């Protein structure tokens, strides 16, 4: 494939960022919105084209004779050479998951660009302050995210990983005069930074032993006769494992060095993907404009962790095969997070927070899916995870954009200000409902298929995982419909005096909702296994479809929806009763198990008060005090000996005499004593 379009896919958003960033203030908001959206549209087309070419052209660099999909490095530029082997390159790697991600990112991003034209202005059509900046940042984010998914080596990924972090920081803090937004952006950056520390160290360990940053060198073999084309291969990953066996120390704190490296890298993924206990930034990140939440904190950036694990999946797999714990860690973290987030989501008031916790929970599903994926059952989990990533991006973006429309209409994030909006905002209502059905896993919406695959792969791994995740799926259906009912039903909407009644938003906002609703409904039907599997070998899931599992999960979901309907469809005292029935649990969930308080305690009470302040004190008083003390001592000494210069000649002479005697006498004594 020619490199022009891939390069343009990255260059376009970057140029847009620079253009809008530097000259945005000379443009009117309207024009810059149009430029941004149009630019993103072009990127969208190019991404679709690229994905199309990858999946459907049948070119030998993308698919081999056996029908296995290959990894192709479209272009690769040396960016920074550390040693002979360790080179950071900037390149464009095309393989099933990166092609899939290109589609996801460009789609959602374009939708959000379009949507923001409507969202980022008030009811009178006046554009928000910093509208141009907003589009610049969106472009920056798109650039970074695209660069991340097409990374050819782990360091390129790290670079863009940091860049998405920074653009996320900028976008969360978009309303920078609001202290809560500033705090949230700071929190998001620092928490992910902390996770990235693990990622970085993981990279260092991995690259030190393997001697390379390239994904292809770690997980694939070059295809004979072709330049820059590789096939995923477990043998290469095994080779990496052997390198660790031979070069590295036997173990460190009970785990092998390779496990440590993978777990550390996964730590980076935990940060970005808001896995417990590094999830605390994501709910707060909802302080950003809602389209941003839809794009970054629901659909794309937060799944980067999943993507990272998927990217290195052969290594994880080999590690697990030889008894390493890396994948188990992924599973456990995912499982716990999924349950936790789902429980918390049941109690939140703020609709964006509910969605945020739902996002955490769904990403945890993907993680679990990767974690339970094993060779014995065709690594179904890997495919399921990617599939869920895809569908989740669509329906979660839909939900967020819908929530944005609601918020924009009502002017509040709180569902208590909404209730009964179904009549006022029919389009929003329908699309939101589609999103909820999809996430709850109701056939034939897309969520059903992906979730079913995940549950199947859990089932394949262990019955415990299956039961656990099914329970979480039930909770998912419950809290989503709780939200749905509370927004659109519960009681009639009360319009405050002097306010307009909420209504459907302009076309720029509704059009994306409709498009995404359609996609969310239909995309489950894509035969995903044909396109995305861990080794590129097509896998026909429908052929292995397990109706029992599907039926059970469907039933569970329906039951959960019914319960939610019973409790929240009309105003009734049942929710309050339930709350009173288990107050302790409710309180913990409501307060997110006090994680924020714990972190506040650690950062402020321990790091700031017990480390930083003492160090600063130590520096000012001990180190600096020593230096000043030297000066003081000199001065003191100067005062102490001033009596020598008493002004009295006879004292001078006396000192002189003693000095003269001592000069000879002490020398004599020393010679006498020591020689």
């Amino acid at each position, binding site marked *: 494939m020619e490199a022009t379009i891939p390069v343009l896919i990255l260059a376009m958003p970057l140029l847009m960022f620079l253009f809008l960033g530097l000259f945005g203030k000379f443009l009117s908001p309207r024009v810059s919105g149009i430029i941004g959206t149009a630019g993103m549209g072009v990127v969208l087309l190019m991404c679709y084209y690229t994905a199309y070419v990858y999946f459907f052209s049948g070119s030998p660099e993308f698919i081999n004779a056996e029908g296995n999909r290959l990894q192709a490095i479209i272009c690769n530029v040396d960016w920074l050479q550390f040693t002979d082997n360790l080179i950071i390159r900037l390149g464009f790697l095309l393989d099933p998951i990166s092609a899939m991600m290109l589609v996801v990112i460009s789609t959602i991003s374009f939708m959000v660009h379009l949507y923001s034209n409507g969202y980022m202005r008030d009811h009178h059509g006046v554009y928000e302050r910093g509208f141009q900046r907003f589009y610049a940042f969106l472009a920056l984010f798109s650039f970074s995210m695209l660069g991340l998914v097409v990374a050819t080596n782990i360091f390129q990924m790290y670079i863009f990983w940091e860049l998405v972090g920074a653009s996320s920081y900028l976008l969360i803090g978009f309303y920078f005069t609001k202290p809560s937004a500033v705090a949230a952006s700071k929190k998001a950056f620092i928490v992910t930074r902390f996770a990235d520390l693990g990622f970085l160290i993981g990279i260092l360990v991995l690259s030190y032993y393997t001697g390379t940053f390239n994904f292809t060198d770690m997980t694939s073999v070059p295809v004979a006769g072709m330049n820059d084309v590789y096939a995923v291969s477990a043998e290469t990953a095994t080779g990496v494992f052997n390198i660790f066996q031979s070069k590295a120390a036997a173990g460190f704190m009970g785990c092998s060095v390779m496990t440590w490296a993978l777990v550390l890298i996964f730590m980076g993924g935990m940060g970005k993907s808001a896995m417990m206990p590094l999830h605390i930034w994501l709910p707060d990140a909802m302080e950003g404009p809602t389209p941003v939440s839809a794009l970054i904190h629901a659909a794309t950036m937060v799944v980067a962790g999943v993507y990272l694990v998927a990217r290195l999946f052969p290594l994880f797999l080999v590690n697990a095969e030889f008894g390493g714990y890396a994948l188990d860690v992924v599973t456990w973290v995912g499982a716990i997070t999924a349950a936790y987030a789902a429980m918390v989501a049941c109690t939140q008031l703020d609709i964006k927070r509910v969605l945020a916790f739902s996002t955490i929970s769904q990403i945890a599903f993907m993680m679990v899916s990767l974690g339970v994926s094993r060779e014995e059952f065709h690594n179904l989990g890997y495919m399921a995870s990617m599939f869920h990533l895809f569908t989740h991006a669509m329906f979660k973006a839909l939900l967020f954009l819908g929530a944005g429309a609601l918020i924009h209409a009502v002017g509040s994030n709180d569902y208590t200000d909404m209730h009964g909006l179904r009549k006022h905002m029919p389009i929003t209502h329908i699309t939101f409902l589609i999103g909820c059905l999809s996430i709850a896993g109701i056939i034939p919406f897309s969520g059903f298929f992906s979730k079913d695959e995940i549950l199947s792969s859990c089932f394949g791994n262990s019955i415990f995982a299956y039961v656990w995740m099914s329970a979480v799926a039930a909770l998912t259906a419950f809290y989503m419909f709780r939200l749905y009912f509370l927004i659109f039903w519960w009681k009639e909407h009360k319009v405050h005096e002097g306010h307009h009644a909420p209504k459907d938003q302009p076309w720029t906002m509704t059009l994306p909702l409709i498009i995404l609703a359609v996609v969310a409904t239909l995309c489950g039907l894509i035969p995903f296994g044909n396109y995305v599997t861990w080794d590129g070998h097509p896998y026909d899931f429908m052929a292995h479809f397990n109706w029992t599992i599907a039926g059970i999960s469907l039933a569970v979901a329906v039951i959960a929806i019914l319960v939610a309907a019973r409790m929240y469809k009309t105003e009734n005292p049942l929710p309050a009763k339930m709350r009173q029935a288990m107050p302790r649990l409710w309180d913990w969930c409501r307060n997110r198990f006090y994680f924020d308080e714990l972190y506040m305690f650690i950062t402020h009470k321990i790091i700031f008060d017990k480390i930083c302040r003492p160090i600063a004190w130590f520096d000012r008083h001990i180190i600096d005090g020593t230096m000043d003390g030297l000066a003081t001592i*000199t001065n003191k000494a100067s*005062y102490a000996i001033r009596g020598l210069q008493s002004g009295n000649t006879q004292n*001078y*002479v006396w*000192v002189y005499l003693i000095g*003269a005697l001592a000069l*000879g006498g002490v020398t004599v004594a020393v010679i*006498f004593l020591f020689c």
Partner: protein
Amino acid sequence: MDYSQFLAMKQEIGLLVVFLVVFLYDVFMPRKGVAADGRAYVKGTSLVAVISFAIFTAACFLCPCIYEPASAFGDMYVTTAVAATIKNILNVGVLIVLIQAMRWADSDIQVVRRGEFYQLLLITLFGMYLMMSGRHFLLFIIGLESASLPLAAMVALDKHRHESTEAAIKYILTACFSSAIFMMGLSFVYGLTGSLYFVDIASALSTQASTGLLTIAIGFVMAGIGFKLSLVPFHLWTGDVYQGAPTSVTSYLSVISKGATAFAFVVVMVQVFGQFYTAAWEWMLYALIILTITVGNLFAIRQRNMKRFLAFSSVSQAGYIMLGVIGVNEMALAALIFYVLVYIFSNLAAFGVIQAIENKTGLVDMDSYRGLCRTNPRLSFCMMLAMFSLAGIPPFAGFFSKFFIFTGALNQGSVAMYVLVLIALINTIISLYYYLLVVKAMYISPDECKVPAFKSATSERIGLVITVAGVIFLGLVSCIYDSILALCGVA
């Protein structure tokens, strides 16, 4: 009885001729000038003194025969190229002192006595010559006394000031005591060796082991010379005398007297007691240097009177000069001479400014220098350069001299020497502190300056221009140091 031997002493004879010219001019010229209080004086003495001395200096520089090594009076007097060079360097210093002193000497109060000032000054210089060239302790002692007794009279020259007399008394009493101790030491040396010739003493000592008596004698001799160099603990007179003496005398005392004695010290220590170097006097000197540098610095920190401040600064500078002695090699010797040369220029630049201000306003307090850069930018610039040079800041000459003296001292390469140099270097930080205090007062302090803007006299300007030029160029122009080193290499 070969009286032509006097001709070997060209510089001394020349100096005495200058002395006689000044003396005769002052005694026999009619007293046409009338001072403010009605006293009569001889006009033009200063000019005669300066011009004749300048001619003498120039002649010494230019005449190649000066540099030929010679000895006379049964080796009682020896001159070498190095000694001649040092005398020339001192001559330059004295010339600057004389130029800078003109304004003071011509002032109404001093004008009557200025003839004596010049005469005494020239005789002390003569005494220093003898100290440097004498190779017999009797001649040495006469030189030493000639260099210090008339100085006492010079210190007392500001007769109207109580401090001047107090300083003179302190000086003469300690000087006499010191010379008594010195002579006591000499008597022991004589008892041990039976001669007072440097060469004979050295050869006699070479046949006998080091004894307590010899060590004590060396201690006494060191104390005697250390007194003139103001090494700690023999320095206590320094602060008071420098402060009390007329500023011109102080500047003379601080540079010329010190430079000459430093060289004499080398000669005595190396030529006479050379073989007892490591056994005894290296360690004595080691202790003295540490004490001198440290104590001098510690005292200098607190001083507010500029003259007293420079006194203690010169105490510590003496310690650095001694680093050139302890190295006992030609490089160290060259470094020492160069150090003295640079020190003369730097210190005289500082004293030039002090004199200019004192002559105009009578102020010598550091506090009155506050904000000087706003009223007298040029003077404060000169002062700053002098301070930087004294502190050893490049690109001024002081940096080079300090660097070379450390290089010379480390040539020996023993660990003890490294320790010594390290201590000395740490002390440079303290010294930098107090030199910067002066700069701070002049440049940073926001106060209104007590010294009004004024134009300094021509003589003062000439003096300052010469010294500042020296401060800037002595180090950068490498041939000066190179030629000194070449001379020392020959010696």
